[in-house]
Structure formats: structure tokens, C-alpha cells
């Protein structure tokens, strides 16, 4: 009973993760295509790079969750919670400097629009969380 309940929670989480990845892929795919058509080189490179990073970080996470659900393992334990906490703290600092850097750099980059600068800033924070998580997961 408890095991099947855990499995259903795991399946639900996987569905949510897959939905998020699909939405992000569609959004950045569309952004990437639009910028390529409009000839906005910086935006095109940025959007494609973000798309690749999102897929590179999220696909291992989804497969990891799927493996755990299949084995009936808990999706979270004290170590994974600690890693998430550490990753959040590190990415907060990295994200702040990233946003600051983007806001200064955007003044000197004529090819970048305000909306894409904001988008890059927010996505940089998300990517920094993913990279921090990867770093702590390997180290701890």
C-alpha cells in the first residue's frame, strides 16, 4: 500500500518534470528559431545554449527519478535534501552576481534587447542552480 503510494507520487513528480522540460524546450526552441530568423546573433546563441543546458541538466534528473521510482527507492533522503539546500545557497550568490553582470553588460551589447537580458538573467540563475546541484552531488 505504502509502496504503491510512493510510486504514484514518484510518477506524478516525473510527469510534472517532463511537462516543465517540454514547456521550456518549446519556449526556448521558439525563441531560438525566431532569433535565428531575425538575424539576432547574440540572442540566437544565448537561447540555443540555454536550451542545450536545460536538456543536459534535466534529462539526467528525469532518468534518475525514473530509476528510483522503478526500484521503489525514496525520491528524497537527508543527503539529497542537504545537496539541494547547499545548491540553493550557492546559486543564490552566483545568481546575484550573474544578474549584476548581465545588467552592466547589456549596456555595452547593442544586439541584446531588455527582455532577453532579463530572460538571460533569470535563466542564468536556474542554470547556476543546476550546476551547483551537480557540483555538490559529485562532491558530497
Amino acid at each position, binding site marked *: 500500500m505504502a509502496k504503491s503510494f510512493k510510486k504514484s507520487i514518484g510518477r506524478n513528480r516525473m510527469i510534472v518534470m517532463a511537462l516543465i522540460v517540454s514547456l521550456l524546450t518549446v519556449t526556448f526552441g521558439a525563441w531560438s528559431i525566431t532569433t535565428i530568423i531575425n538575424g539576432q546573433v547574440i540572442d540566437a546563441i544565448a537561447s540555443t545554449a540555454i536550451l542545450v543546458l536545460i536538456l543536459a541538466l534535466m534529462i539526467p534528473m528525469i532518468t534518475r527519478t525514473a530509476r*528510483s521510482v522503478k*526500484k521503489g*527507492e*525514496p525520491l528524497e*533522503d*537527508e*543527503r*539529497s535534501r542537504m545537496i539541494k539546500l547547499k545548491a540553493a545557497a550557492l546559486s543564490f550568490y552566483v545568481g546575484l552576481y550573474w544578474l549584476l553582470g548581465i545588467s552592466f553588460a547589456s549596456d555595452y551589447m547593442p544586439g541584446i534587447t531588455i527582455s532577453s537580458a532579463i530572460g538571460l538573467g533569470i535563466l542564468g540563475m536556474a542554470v547556476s542552480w543546476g550546476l551547483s546541484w551537480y557540483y555538490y552531488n559529485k562532491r*558530497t
Partner: protein
Amino acid sequence: MKNKIRENRARLRMTQEELARRAGVRRETIIYLEKGKYNPSLELAMKVARILGVKVDELFALE
């Protein structure tokens, strides 16, 4: 921190997966514990010691 989880687990012919299941953690956590890369909480240390049938201070030692 050094530990003797691997030795005690081998003594009982227990797999990492079984130990993880009984301790209520992921197998990864057991792997990192055995490698000495992760220091467990007091609760997990006591759980693992109880499962392996040893005292906590026999299982973990400061380097």
C-alpha cells in the same frame, strides 16, 4: 570520518540496496557513506549501526 560500513555489510552478505531500503535512504547515500564522502546525521548513523548489529562508535571513527 572513517567507517566500517562496507566490512560489516559484507559480513552480513547484505547488498547496498538492501541496506538503503532498510535505512530508508537512497542507494547513492550508502555509496557515498561507504566511500567516506558523506557524514550521516546521528539518526542515520544509529539506524545503520542497528541494522548492521554494531555500536555506532564501532562503525564510525574520527580520522
